[in-house]
């Protein structure tokens, strides 16, 4: 049995009186790609933010490579501790709105964290950053500022930026939702390559084609719980649950 990269047990997350996650269990094996689907407000994005403790859960356990990351100094307070920063260095995240640093060039976006967090030399960080940007097809955009890049290019810079920290897991939060349709493919292609190289990925997405083709597991969430999960063909083509059927019906109608 392959080692579980991420293991979530009984995750509850509340924002004030609103309970966004109501007991979620999920296991992601090493090298596995898990696609998370669901209507807006179902808790998908919050679930991702739990994994890197951007939104630490109030209840439940999170194991990252076998280590319980909710324990230890500072856990549960939602604030700084060696634990949080250490966790986030192993978990990369890419956001719907890219969130590139607008005052930095593409290359500087990629090199900042390795330099400031890992203490890499400028030279080393630049060499690695350049290689990463080449890998996502942006060798000619190293010194461009984000506002001079298309959405698809920005998102690929964001992927390279996350990869620069050599994460063991990557979280993708609706990374193509803010893109013009013709720019979606270049980002999905980059993600597909990453999956083929064996990266463990949790992908919140509305791209059914991607989920079916690249996903090893598809999870359907609604109302803060996992409604259905399984192989992509099973969940997407033969959903058992009525809620899943209804959601897929609405999405595929488009």
């Amino acid at each position, binding site marked *: 049995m392959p080692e579980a990269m991420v293991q979530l047990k009984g995750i509850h997350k509340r924002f004030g009186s609103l309970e966004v996650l109501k007991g979620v269990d999920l296991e992601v094996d090493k090298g596995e790609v898990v696609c998370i689907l669901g209507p807006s407000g179902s808790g998908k994005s919050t679930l991702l933010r739990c994994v890197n403790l*951007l939104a630490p859960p109030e209840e439940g356990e999170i194991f990252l490579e076998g280590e319980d990351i909710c324990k230890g100094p500072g856990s549960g307070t939602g*604030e700084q501790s060696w634990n949080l*920063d250490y966790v986030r260095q192993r978990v990369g995240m890419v956001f719907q709105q890219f969130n590139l*640093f607008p005052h930095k060039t593409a290359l500087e976006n990629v090199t*900042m964290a390795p330099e*400031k967090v890992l203490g890499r030399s400028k030279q080393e960080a630049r060499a690695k950053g350049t290689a990463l940007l080449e890998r996502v097809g942006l060798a000619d955009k190293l010194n461009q500022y984000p506002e*001079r890049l298309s*959405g698809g290019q920005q998102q690929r810079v964001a992927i390279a930026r996350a990869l620069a*920290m050599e994460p063991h897991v990557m979280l993708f939060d609706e990374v193509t939702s803010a893109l013009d349709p013709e720019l979606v493919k270049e980002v999905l292609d980059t993600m597909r390559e990453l999956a083929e190289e064996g990266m463990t990925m949790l992908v919140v997405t509305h791209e059914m084609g991607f989920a079916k083709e690249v996903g090893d597991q598809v999870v359907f969430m609604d109302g803060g719980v996992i409604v259905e999960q399984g192989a992509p063909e099973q969940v997407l083509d033969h959903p058992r649950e009525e809620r899943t059927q209804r959601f897929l019906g609405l999405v595929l109608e488009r």
Partner: protein
Amino acid sequence: MSEFFHQYFDFNYMGEHFWEVLEAFLQNLLIFAVVAVLALTWGLVLALLRQLPGRKFVPVRFLTIAYIDLFRAIPILIVILLISGGIPFLEFIPKDIRIPHWLGKPDPFWYGVAALMLVYGAFTAEVYRAGIEAVPGGQMEAARSLGMSHFAAMRHVIVPQAVTLIPAPMLNELISLLKDTTLVSVIAFSESVLISRELLAESFNSSALILTAFFFVVIILPMARVVDKMIARNQAKIARGSHIEVA
């Protein structure tokens, strides 16, 4: 009418005392320069303390907010009077600090600097805060998700963007700081208003005050125009709107 004119606009009188008043005005500029550096720094520290996250920093945030509120509320004149009237008598403070004569400047100069720094630190802290809060939340999230600490994220991601958003309001604060340097005249520091009043007392002519006002106008009008330009430029940027799809 001509009497009035002579009282305030006696150009001969202004000419006679031009250098004396100018030299005093340079003291205002000096106070301004020293306080500007100190207050811009102190204000940033306050703003950053106010943004510290989490429960364990509640006391720090509370004290910072209390400080900012208090010093924005108390009239600067009172702060100046309390400092110059109080600090010298706090005997547990070493004499060199209690009654400072650093860099050849008399103690009222430093009391004035301290008072203005304390007050303007509070005001600039609020300007910084507006800048910090105008940076989209996703920036902090992205920085933290890369394993950066709150402090590193502030330093490398948030503050560099925040300061580009606030030059216009900050310059407004500096304009009012420059004018408020005249308040130090109440503790007998020889700056331009004090000198002008002394001249008024000995000659019964107010023209030195007008001359002093003229100096302030000459320095501040260009600053005001720069503020206008900055605001216009910002508005143009906003009007251009979501210009992300350039490439």
